[in-house]
């Protein structure tokens, strides 16, 4: 992998991290005391800063350093989590995204930096900017390393550093040494000051202090020891790795007493004695004079570091362990598709030699290629949770824009979907959520009058249903105004004045340009754009349905195939050519008998068990000359909630097909959405049923 590849990988990884940071910040706003979230934000920023510097994104590293410093202050308890911190954090996420895209962040970057500097409280903001400025201005002092941490796993070292009293006479600057040490990782330093004498006995140039240090780092023991290389002859130095005990549920966090015993500050018998008190261990240990407050502080720092490493490892185990560029997976999937097609061809040939070894080999290859296909597909399948978390920010911002308190509830985030499909779902979901926020939910005043909770809820839920995933977006608002929809639809001539079918009336909101809203806002206009949502879903071979209950809210359900690469299709024959219809749309197949056909010729109606169904002759739609002499078949499909019969020459059968993109020359043909290669090497076009129905009968 060359440097450019690494840079691209960094950008991709940084964007993922920013998404996580954004999600954490939105939750943090609601749970400001959750220090795990603060740590998560800090760690994310720290990694972006370090990797950014390593891969040549200095502007990203420099800016992120400022924000990281702010969250370090928050982490240290010097600054409370409040709306200003969250705002700065979220604005910084946007700004870092801009910087990653090659922008300079312009005024927004400066605005954020001055917002940090302007923070009041205990002066944390000023301290951050002062510290940054000092670090930038300081010459001759080792600056904290702005590099990615070492390559090893995160580990903890416990150091005991007792310098000789005359160390300062040797020109050693302890501040420099500790600064260098803290650049290796997350460092906690406790000075043990109990040996400092009163002024009358103090020789001011001699040292009477020692230090207990705990460091969490990716560097090894030698790297830590090397910091002390110039003082090792003039001190007692002990460095020992902290054993991270693994339990069934990850790293076990040691008890305070265990650490104090391990460090030699307490005996086992002391621990028993202190535990008898049934009060906070550290406080009792100090009160009883068993240990100093400084010993307890150092032990607590070690305990906190073990806990942090445990939670980091846990979250790493939950996520994918190897990052692979999406393009590579797409390329792999293409190759697997070719292999599947080749295997189908081989199977065709093998049938001619059913008793020979070739048939057996072909069968084995068939099994292997099917396994390979499934494994490759599963690599692109990712949980929806992270994707959903991105909408927390959207809902937060919308809440402020529309002046309605909103909250987003997410469930089913562990449901998995093809990464490519997820990317294409973003715009439709954004649109639906904006609609809900702007027009779906009532104002707080109205909700109060209606006896509803003042904070409106928008919920996203996902679940797998067979080979498809259903994503529902619901709100607890007013629901659809069916009377108004009916009125508008009649005005626009979309339905007759006597239309009573609720489902038909409800489906009007998916008509292009349909809106019941008296005013359009810059956020949405109810109904406007839902046709686009529907079209986008259809491009994904998905479907959208809408339900509503007056006064209780509305729910849109998107049903999407797990993957866009391979579909279950029904192979049909028209004019001697093969075509594929998505099996998810097929209801049934019937013979096209003369008696079944009603009056009229092509594109007429079928009376199926008392139900009148429009028929579309696909020969017409696909402009295929000639007639079929035999008994035609009808494939009854569901298109936009209504049954339609597609007349074909013959139904060949069910087939799982690998979708190949269309060449540019034919990609504009609306009736066709893709192509596939069959086992005999012939090409079959995949029909876009919704487009065909729309073109022929205008639905």
């Amino acid at each position, binding site marked *: 992998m060359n440097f450019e590849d690494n840079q691209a990988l960094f950008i991709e990884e940084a964007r993922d991290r920013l998404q996580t940071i954004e999600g954490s910040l939105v939750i943090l706003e609601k749970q400001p005391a959750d220090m795990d979230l603060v740590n998560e934000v800090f760690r994310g920023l720290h990694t972006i800063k370090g990797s950014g510097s390593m891969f040549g994104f200095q502007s990203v590293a420099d800016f992120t350093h400022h924000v990281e410093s702010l969250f370090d202050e928050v982490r240290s308890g010097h600054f409370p989590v409040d709306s200003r911190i969250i705002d700065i954090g979220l604005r910084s996420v946007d700004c870092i995204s801009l910087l990653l895209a090659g922008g300079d962040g312009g005024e927004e970057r400066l605005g954020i930096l001055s917002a940090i500097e302007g923070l009041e409280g205990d002066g944390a903001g000023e301290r951050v900017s002062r510290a940054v400025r000092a670090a930038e201005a300081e010459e001759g002092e080792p600056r904290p390393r702005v590099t990615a941490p070492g390559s090893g796993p995160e580990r903890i070292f416990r150091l005991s550093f007792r310098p000789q009293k005359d160390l300062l006479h040797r020109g050693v600057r302890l501040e420099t040494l500790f600064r260098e040490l803290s650049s290796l990782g997350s460092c906690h*330093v406790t000075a043990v000051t109990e040996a400092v004498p009163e002024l009358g006995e103090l020789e001011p140039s001699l040292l009477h202090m020692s230090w207990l240090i705990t460091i969490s780092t990716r560097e090894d023991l030698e790297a830590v020891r090397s910091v002390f290389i110039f003082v090792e002859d003039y001190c007692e130095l002990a460095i020992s790795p902290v054993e991270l005990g693994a339990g069934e549920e990850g790293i076990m966090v040691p008890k305070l007493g265990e650490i104090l015993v391990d460090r030699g500050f307490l005996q086992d018998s002391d621990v028993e004695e202190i535990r008898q008190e049934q009060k906070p261990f550290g406080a009792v240990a100090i009160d009883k004079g068993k240990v100093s407050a400084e010993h307890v502080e150092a032990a607590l720092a070690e305990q906190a570091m073990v806990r942090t490493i445990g939670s980091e490892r846990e979250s790493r185990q939950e996520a994918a362990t190897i990052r692979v560029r999406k393009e590579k997976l797409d390329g792999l999937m293409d190759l697997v598709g070719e292999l599947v097609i080749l295997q189908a061809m081989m199977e065709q040939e093998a049938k001619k030699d059913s008793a020979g070894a070739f048939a057996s080999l072909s069968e084995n290859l068939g099994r292997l290629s099917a396994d390979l296909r499934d494994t490759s597909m599963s690599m692109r399948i990712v949980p929806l949770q992270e994707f959903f978390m991105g909408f927390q920010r959207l809902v937060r911002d919308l809440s402020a824009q529309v002046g309605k308190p909103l909250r987003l509830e997410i469930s089913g985030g562990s449901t998995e979907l093809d990464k490519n499909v997820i990317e294409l779902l973003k715009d439709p979901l954004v649109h639906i959520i904006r609609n809900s926020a702007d027009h779906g939910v009532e104002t707080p005043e109205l909700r109060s009058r209606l006896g509803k909770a003042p904070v409106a809820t928008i919920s996203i839920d996902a679940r797998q249903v067979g080979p498809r995933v259903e994503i529902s977006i619901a709100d607890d608002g007013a629901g659809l105004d069916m009377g108004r929809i009916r009125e508008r639809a009649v005005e626009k001539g979309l339905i007759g004045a006597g239309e009573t079918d609720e489902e038909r009336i409800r489906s009007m909101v998916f008509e292009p340009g349909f809106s019941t809203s008296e005013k359009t806002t810059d956020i949405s206009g109810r109904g406007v754009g839902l046709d686009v949502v529907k079209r986008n879903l259809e491009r994904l071979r998905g479907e959208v349905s809408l339900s509503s209950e007056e006064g209780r809210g509305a729910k849109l359900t998107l049903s999407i195939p797990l993957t866009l690469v391979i579909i279950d299709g029904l192979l049909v024959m028209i004019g001697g050519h093969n075509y594929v219809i998505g099996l998810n749309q097929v209801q049934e197949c019937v013979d096209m008998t003369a008696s079944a056909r009603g009056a009229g010729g092509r594109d007429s109606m079928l009376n199926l068990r008392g139900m009148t169904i429009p028929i579309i002759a696909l020969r017409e739609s696909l402009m295929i000359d000639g007639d079929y002499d035999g008994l035609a078949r009808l494939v009854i499909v569901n298109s936009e909630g209504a049954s339609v019969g597609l007349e074909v020459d013959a139904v060949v059968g069910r087939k799982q097909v690998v979708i190949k993109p269309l060449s540019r020359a034919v990609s504009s043909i609306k009736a066709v959405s893709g192509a596939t290669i069959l086992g005999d090497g012939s090409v079959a076009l995949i029909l876009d049923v919704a487009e065909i129905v729309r073109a022929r009968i205008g639905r």
Partner: protein
Amino acid sequence: MNIQIAESPGDLLLSIDGRAGIDESDELASAFRKALESGAPLVRLALSGLSAVDVSFLQLLLSLELSLSRGGRSLALRPLPAGHVLLQVADLLGINVKRLLASKTESA
């Protein structure tokens, strides 16, 4: 470095400006001892004018605080601006200045 001592009934104010490191430690210790010997029940320190400090100065502070408290007297530190060099170095060296002095920090 510049050290000024101002005595008033009941307390003593020690103002220190400039560098306060190992090279200045004897002079500083001498000033601190004078403050101790003054017998003032409250010794106040004005350190905002410090431009650099090291571990020896922090050790002197700890020692002064210890000596005063053992005699039933107090040390009070005048407020320092956030990010002041003294607080930075104390943080770096793990010396909890706030724990030692915050309760006795004077209001501005």
